[in-house]
């Protein structure tokens, strides 16, 4: 194996934070591929630039995604990274693993690839980093025969992801892991065979704390909420006060709707004015609990700024019940995809198409009525359209 001098990368083995350079070098002990990755990276650090080429299409038979082609632009100097494709393995919902089950993947990856991973990629898949083209088919056969599958890439349904939800969080209003798994299984064809104008992502969070950042990075954000009151255990409120919490400053004063009051003994919530933001509950989890009907808010359209600006998801369905098999959600998603497919130019995300065509035509197409929960405020100009059915008083 070639021995690379790495004076620059060595600097990043120092310090208390776990070092990715140590990880690269661990894999490089036994893998020529990882070793040449180290060599090429040292050169990048010296020259302040990357040396990768975009790959063109590589993949496995019958799938249009799950593998991202990657080639070095210096294959003669670093033959081990001449091919260095990414294989996305769809994570189990919630990213819990039984150790023997994960070991199976590790053993296969040492045999067929570089031994380097990302746990996990930002969409949620396990990312196996660095694979040669000829290893893809046999690796795929090994992985799938053991009950695992590839995730999505390209203009497809991307691997859905969720928070830990009911598995270990008292705030989960919906079964985020089950919804995530159900959508992933129901739409395998859409995950593996890109057929859309662009990518489409689902992320499912159990409550408005949104630990998967669904509201910022999912075309369809599914966020748990509730309809009832917040139950207050006044004895436990007293415990918080005794333990030193300044309830007026930290809780009442920071409630965005001003719907709480505290007289030094009793914490009162004017539930009708609560917007369910989760602030008070997250700070006094032993004392406060949501009650009543549970469900999800469905929001649409968030994306990173490429290219006409970043978007946060917009509320379209303020409340939807979430019971398996999630038929209402799936019917809605299918209507959304149909409208998007009909109206988008290539590489237009759903949020951009809604901006171009108007929220009204989108909502009408998917059969969702107008509701004040969908907007921060109504429009401020008098320039609006009337359709015949509006004039006839149908709507």
């Amino acid at each position, binding site marked *: 194996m070639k021995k690379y001098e790495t004076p620059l990368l060595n600097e990043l083995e120092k310090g208390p934070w776990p070092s*990715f350079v140590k990880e690269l070098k661990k894999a490089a002990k036994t893998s020529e591929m990882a070793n040449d990755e180290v060599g090429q990276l040292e050169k990048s650090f010296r020259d*302040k630039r990357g040396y990768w080429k975009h790959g063109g299409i590589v993949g496995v038979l019958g799938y249009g995604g799950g593998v991202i082609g990657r080639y070095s632009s210096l294959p003669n100097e670093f033959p081990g990274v001449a091919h260095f494709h990414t294989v996305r393995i769809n994570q189990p919902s919630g990213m819990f693993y039984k150790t023997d089950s994960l*070991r199976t993947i590790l053993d296969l990856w040492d045999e067929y690839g570089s031994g380097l991973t*990302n746990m996990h990629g930002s969409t949620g898949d396990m990312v196996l980093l660095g694979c040669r083209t000829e290893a893809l088919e*046999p690796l795929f056969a090994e992985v799938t025969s053991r009950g695992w599958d590839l995730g999505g890439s390209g203009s497809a349904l991307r691997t859905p992801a969720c928070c830990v939800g009911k598995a270990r969080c008292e705030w989960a209003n919906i079964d985020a892991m089950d919804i995530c798994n159900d959508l992933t299984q129901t739409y395998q064809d859409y995950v*593996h065979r890109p057929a859309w104008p662009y990518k489409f992502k689902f992320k499912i969070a159990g409550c408005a704390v949104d630990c998967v950042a669904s509201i910022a990075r999912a075309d369809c954000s599914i966020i748990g909420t509730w309809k009832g009151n917040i139950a207050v255990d006044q004895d436990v409120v007293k415990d918080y006060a005794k333990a030193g919490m300044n309830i007026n400053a930290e809780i009442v004063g920071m409630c965005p709707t001003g719907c709480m009051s505290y007289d030094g003994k009793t914490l009162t919530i004017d539930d009708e004015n609560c917007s369910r933001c989760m602030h008070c509950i997250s700070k006094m989890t032993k004392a406060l609990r949501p009650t009543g009907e549970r469900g999800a808010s469905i929001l649409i359209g968030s994306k990173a700024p490429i290219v006409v600006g970043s978007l946060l998801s917009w509320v379209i369905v303020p409340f939807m019940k979430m019971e398996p098999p999630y038929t209402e959600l799936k019917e809605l998603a299918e209507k959304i995809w149909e409208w998007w497919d009909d109206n988008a130019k290539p590489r237009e995300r759903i949020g951009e198409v809604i901006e171009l065509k108007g929220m009204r035509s989108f909502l009408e197409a998917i059969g969702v009525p107008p509701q004040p929960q969908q907007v921060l405020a109504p429009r401020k100009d008098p320039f609006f359209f009337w359709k015949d059915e509006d004039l006839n008083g149908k709507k």
Partner: protein
Amino acid sequence: MAWLTEQEAKAKRKTDIGPPHYSKMLPPVISKNYGKWKYHEVFTPGTMVHVAESGDKVYTVRVASPRILATESIRAMLDIADKYCDGYIRWTTRNNVEFMTTREENVPLIKKAAEDAGYPAGGIGSGLSNMVHTQGWVHCHSAAADASGLVKAIMDEVYPYFTEKKLPAKTRLALACCVNMCGAVHCSDLAVVAIHRKVPEINHDLVKNMCEIPTTIGACPTRAISPDPAKKSVKINPDKCMYCGNCFTVCPPIDIHRPEEDGVAIVVGGKVGSLRKGPMFSKLAIPYIKNNPPRWPEVVSAVKNILETYANDARKHERIGEWIDRIGWESFFKKTGIEFTYQHIDDFTFARDTFRTSAAFKW
């Protein structure tokens, strides 16, 4: 183990089976109390307990990881999980690793074992969690800076806020190595975004042979590219180009790399939770700092300056964005000593919403 032959692979392969069902991956205490958790308590930034209605308890030790992990390291983590956690482990959405156990006495043992393996405990509560990031020079063709290297240098410096020190509220750091922002860093408390700053250079002779002209023109999101029939190549309108590098992706002879011009911007004040003020976008704090590998000292000290100014000035539970909203951006620039430039004034899609339309402001 030997590689499968083509025949064997064909016989073995399955399609569209999806991931394993999560129920096969859950520790028994999680399966038993699924959906029946009552409350949780954070002991230290690396340890917490969740208590179920049944009275069952599950202790969690959360540890850092560099996201890039060698199989050897993951095996070491799995060994810890076998020893103390009945053979179960979990990853969080921010690339931390969680060890769960029903036995309180295992908590310090797990913490020690993970720390000995090089993965310190932390990341829970009002402080820093792991810094989410993208691929950088390790794997991506578009990268205007490395990702893992910058993250390592920054986290080394702000390390105590992960393991022990408190901040006014949860603070989320992120890094994207180009404006595609694969990590969707646009709603983070503080994010580093790598940027190119010059129109790419075209090698016309190579374009002729290597690139499909319509595809190249189509790749440009701002329609800055047009045909150059004389050269059988393309030209770029410098007034429209915003250095995204999409053209380079489809046509390598259009080179976007400029080692001496590439670098990073720093954005601040985003959040995704609806708590209190609702989700917010991150906004530009520092338009450019040059690439200075291997440890980017200028970026590290800029991040530290913003974090410490926030730590000293914000009220309890205020995220960076909420703090800036309260004190005003003019105070943010004053308190941090960051220079305000033309680049800070928006001229993109929603510019007019960002101009001040009130006669009230601070000096």
